[in-house]
C-alpha cells in the first residue's frame, strides 16, 4: 500500500522567489468570480449590479447544465459585471461587506448521506465546480459514475505552494471532506503523497481513502500522471479530481452548513519583493497581493504557476482554481547573438548550454520565447520529460490533423494541457503545445457528446 511509485522522466525547475513559510492575512474587500476559469461553461447570469449577496448565493449557472451553480465567496454587493468583446461575461465583481454572512445549507454527517444527498449539497453551495473530471478537465458531471477520485496532496510545479503548511491544523475539516468524497464514487478515493516531502499528519492519517506515495521530478505532482500510474483512464471511463484546499472547503460545508471559501494563496516569483502565503477568499483582487510588493520592471502576473497558469491583467482577480500567483519579468528584449554565445545563467534542459552543469541553480525566468516558431524538427526530446506510456509527438500530430480515431488510440483521454507543459517549455521549435492539446480535448468532447 505504501509502495512508492517512482516517476523517472520529468524536470524540476528551480526558480527564485519561493514564498516564505508564513501565512499572512490579506486585506481586501474586492473579489470576483470569472466564468472564463471554467472550461466549457456557458454562463447564465443570475444577479445584477447592486444586488446583495451572501457567501453561497448563486451568481451565475451553466446554461447547459443548470444544476451547476457558481456562488459568491463572500457577503456583500455585486459591484460590477464586466463583459468583454461580443458581451462575453468576464468577471462578476463583488464588494465584500466584511460581515461574512452565509447562506445556510444545513450541517450533516456526510457518512450518513447517500451520493444524491452529498451531490445536491455540493451543487447548491457552489462547491461542485471544484470537482473536475478527466478526460477533458472540465467540471464533473453530477450524473456520472466516476471510477475513482484523485487528490494530489503535493504540487511539483515551479515555486508551488506547500500544502503541508496550508492544511496545518485543519485535519478535521479535511477528513470530513474526504468522507463526503467517498460517498460520490463506488471506486476508491486516492490520496497521493510525496514520498519525500509530505510530512503533514493531516494527509498521512486520513481514513477511508487509499494513500499512495510518489517520488520523482515534476510532473510527479500532476494528478494526470498519478492517474496514469495507478488507474489509467480507458475510453468511456471518468475520473474526478480536486485539490486539497477544496477538500477542506467541502469538509467545512458539512461541519458548518456554510460555503467557507477560504483559500491560502502563495505569492511567488522573482519579481516579488517579499514572497509569502496569504490567507484570503476565492477570487481575491490581484492588486491586494502585489501592491508595494513587486519590482518596478515590466511584469507579467500569472494566476497559477509559470507552466500552466493564466496571464492576469493588472486590475484582475485570481482564478478560481489557482493556489498561487507568480510574477515574472516580461522578456520583450532583443539579445545580440543570443543563440551563439555560451549563455551562462540561461535556463535550458538541453545540454547545449552550460546550465546543465549547475543543477541547483535558481533562475529568474522571464517570458522571452528565445527563438522563432519552427516546424517540429527535433525528436526524442519530449519523451524525456513526459512520464506517460504515450507517444507525445504522434499524439500532437494527430490533434493537428484532427484525426479523432488516432487521438483516441494514442491516449488523449489520459492527458491534459498541464501534462504537456514541460514538453512545451523544452521544445526547440517553440510550438504552443498546450494550446494544441486543449484544442484536441475540446474537439473530442464535442465529438463524444
Amino acid at each position, binding site marked *: 500500500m505504501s509502495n512508492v511509485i517512482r516517476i523517472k522522466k520529468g524536470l524540476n525547475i528551480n526558480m527564485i522567489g519561493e514564498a516564505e513559510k508564513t501565512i499572512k492575512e490579506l486585506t481586501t474587500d474586492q473579489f470576483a468570480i470569472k466564468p472564463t476559469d471554467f472550461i466549457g461553461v456557458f454562463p447564465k447570469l443570475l444577479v445584477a449590479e447592486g444586488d446583495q449577496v451572501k457567501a453561497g448565493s448563486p451568481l451565475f449557472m451553466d446554461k447547459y447544465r443548470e444544476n451547476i451553480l457558481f456562488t459568491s465567496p463572500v457577503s456583500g454587493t455585486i459591484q460590477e459585471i464586466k463583459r468583454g468583446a461580443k458581451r462575453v461575461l468576464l468577471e462578476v465583481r463583488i464588494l465584500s461587506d466584511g460581515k461574512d454572512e452565509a447562506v445556510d445549507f444545513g450541517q450533516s454527517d456526510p457518512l450518513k448521506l447517500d451520493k444524491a444527498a452529498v451531490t445536491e449539497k455540493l451543487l447548491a453551495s457552489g462547491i461542485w465546480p471544484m470537482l473536475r473530471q478527466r478526460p477533458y478537465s472540465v467540471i464533473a458531471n453530477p450524473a456520472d459514475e466516476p471510477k475513482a477520485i484523485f487528490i494530489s496532496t503535493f504540487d511539483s510545479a515551479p515555486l508551488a505552494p506547500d500544502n503541508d503548511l496550508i492544511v496545518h491544523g485543519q485535519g478535521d475539516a479535511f477528513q470530513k471532506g474526504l468522507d463526503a468524497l467517498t460517498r460520490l464514487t463506488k471506486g476508491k478515493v486516492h490520496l497521493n503523497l510525496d514520498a519525500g516531502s509530505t510530512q503533514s499528519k493531516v494527509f498521512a492519517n486520513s481514513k477511508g481513502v487509499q494513500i499512495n506515495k510518489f517520488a520523482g521530478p515534476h510532473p510527479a505532482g500532476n494528478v494526470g500522471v498519478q492517474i496514469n500510474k495507478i488507474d489509467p483512464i480507458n475510453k468511456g471511463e471518468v475520473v474526478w479530481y480536486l485539490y486539497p484546499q477544496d477538500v477542506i472547503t467541502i469538509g467545512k460545508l458539512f461541519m458548518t452548513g456554510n460555503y467557507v471559501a477560504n483559500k491560502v494563496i502563495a505569492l511567488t516569483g522573482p519579481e516579488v519583493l517579499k514572497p509569502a502565503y496569504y490567507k484570503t477568499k476565492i477570487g481575491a483582487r490581484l492588486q491586494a497581493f502585489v501592491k508595494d510588493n513587486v519590482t518596478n520592471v515590466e511584469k507579467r502576473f500569472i494566476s497559477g504557476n509559470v507552466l500552466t*497558469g493564466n496571464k492576469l491583467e493588472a486590475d484582475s482577480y485570481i482564478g478560481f482554481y489557482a493556489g498561487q500567483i507568480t510574477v515574472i519579468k516580461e522578456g520583450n528584449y532583443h539579445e545580440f547573438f543570443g543563440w551563439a554565445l555560451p549563455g551562462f545563467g540561461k535556463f535550458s534542459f538541453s545540454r*547545449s548550454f552550460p546550465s546543465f552543469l549547475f543543477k541547483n541553480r535558481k533562475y529568474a525566468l522571464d*517570458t522571452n520565447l528565445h527563438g522563432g516558431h519552427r516546424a517540429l524538427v527535433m525528436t526524442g526530446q519530449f519523451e524525456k520529460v513526459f512520464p506517460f506510456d504515450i507517444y507525445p509527438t504522434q499524439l500532437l500530430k494527430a490533434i493537428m490533423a484532427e484525426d479523432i480515431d488516432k487521438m483516441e488510440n494514442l491516449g488523449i483521454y489520459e492527458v491534459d494541457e498541464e501534462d504537456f507543459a514541460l514538453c512545451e517549455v523544452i521544445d*526547440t*521549435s517553440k510550438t504552443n503545445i498546450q494550446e494544441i492539446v486543449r484544442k484536441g480535448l475540446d474537439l473530442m468532447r464535442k465529438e463524444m457528446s
Partner: protein
Amino acid sequence: MKFLRDFLDKQKPQFEKGGRFEKLHSTFDAFETFLFVPDKVTTTGAHFRDAIDLKRTMSVVIIAMLPALLFGIWNVGYQHFLSLGQSPGFWPIIFYGLLKVLPIVIVSYVAGLGAEFIFAQSRGHEVNEGYLVSGMLIPLVMPVDIPLWMVAVASIFAVVIGKETFGGTGMNVFNPALLARAFVFFAYPAKITGDAIWIGGLSKAEGVVDGFSGATPLSYAASGAMDKLPPMSDLFFGFVPGSIGETSKLAIIIGAVILIATGIGSWRIILSSILGGISMSLIFNLFAANEYMKLDPMTQIMMGSFLFGTVFMATDPVTASQTNRGKWIYGFLVGFFAIMIRVFNPAYPEGTMLAILLMNAFAPLIDFYVVEANIKKRLKRASLGLKPLKQN
C-alpha cells in the same frame, strides 16, 4: 551593439507590410534574427521557454562537424602532395587544402541558401536553419575534385526537390545532403567513382609519382586486394583518400561525442548502426565466400563513410525514425544494409549512402508499427479494465 539594434529598428518598417521592401521581409528577418534573438514573448501555455532554439541546435551540429572539416582540409593537402611524392610541411598542406575545400563549402552555402531564401521569400515564411547543417554536410561527402558547378546544382536540387517540395525543413523524407550526393552519383557517375577523383589534382595526373593509384581502402577491398589495405591506424586517424570529411574516424568520434553529450544527436541511432554494421560483418564472416566477406568487423566499420554516415547523416531527426524504439530498429538496419550493399554491390564501393536513403524511406513505416504496438496495448488494457467494473 546598440547602434546595430538602432539601425535594424530604423530599417525594419521598410521591410514590413506596406513598406518599400515588403517582398524582402523573410531575408531581413533571417538577418535580424541571426544577429539578435527576437523580442517575442510567450502568448499561450507555459510562460517561459527553454533558451534553446533551432539556431542553437544547428550550430552545435556544425561545431561537431568542424573536426572532420579541419582534418579534411589537411588531408586533402596531404594526399595531394603524397601523390606528387613531396612532403612540404604543415602550412603548404593546409594552404592547398583550403584552396580546394573552401570553394566547395562556399558554393554549397551560396547555392543552397540562395534557393532556401527564394523559397522562404515566395512563400512568406521565416528562413529555416536546416540548411546551415546540410550546407556543411554536402562538401564533406564530396570528392575533392568535384567540379564546383556540380556542387551548386546538387545543392539546389537538395533544397528544391529534397526539401521544399515536401514543405520545407522538418517535412522532408530524405536527408537533403545525402540526396545531393545521390544526385551527383546518379547524374555524373564519372565524377564520383573511380580511383582518381579522391585526391586533389590526381585526375589531371601531372607529376604524379609512378605507381600511385589514389585508390581508397574500399576500392582495394572491393577488388579483393586485402593486402593493400592501409594499416588500422591510418584508417583510424584518416591518412587515406576519400570524401573530404569521411576519412578521419578520430575527428568523427569527436563529433559524435559532442552530439551525444549535448543530447542533440541520438546515441540510440549511432550505437545501433554500429551494432548493425558489426552484425552484418559477422554474418559475412560466417559464410566467408570471398575475401571481402572475410574482412573483420573492425576494419569494415573503420573503412569508407560508415562512421561519418551513422554519426552525421543517419541521426538527422527529421528523416530518421522518431520514436525511441524505432530509432533502435532504424539505426540497426542502416548499419546492416550499409555493410551488405558495400560488399555485394559491384557498381560502387560504398553502401552507407544508399543504406541511409533506403532507411529514410522506411523510417515512417518503422514508427507506424512501433506506435501501433502502443495502441494495441491501450486497447487491450481497456478491454481488461472494463471487466472488474462491471462485476462491481
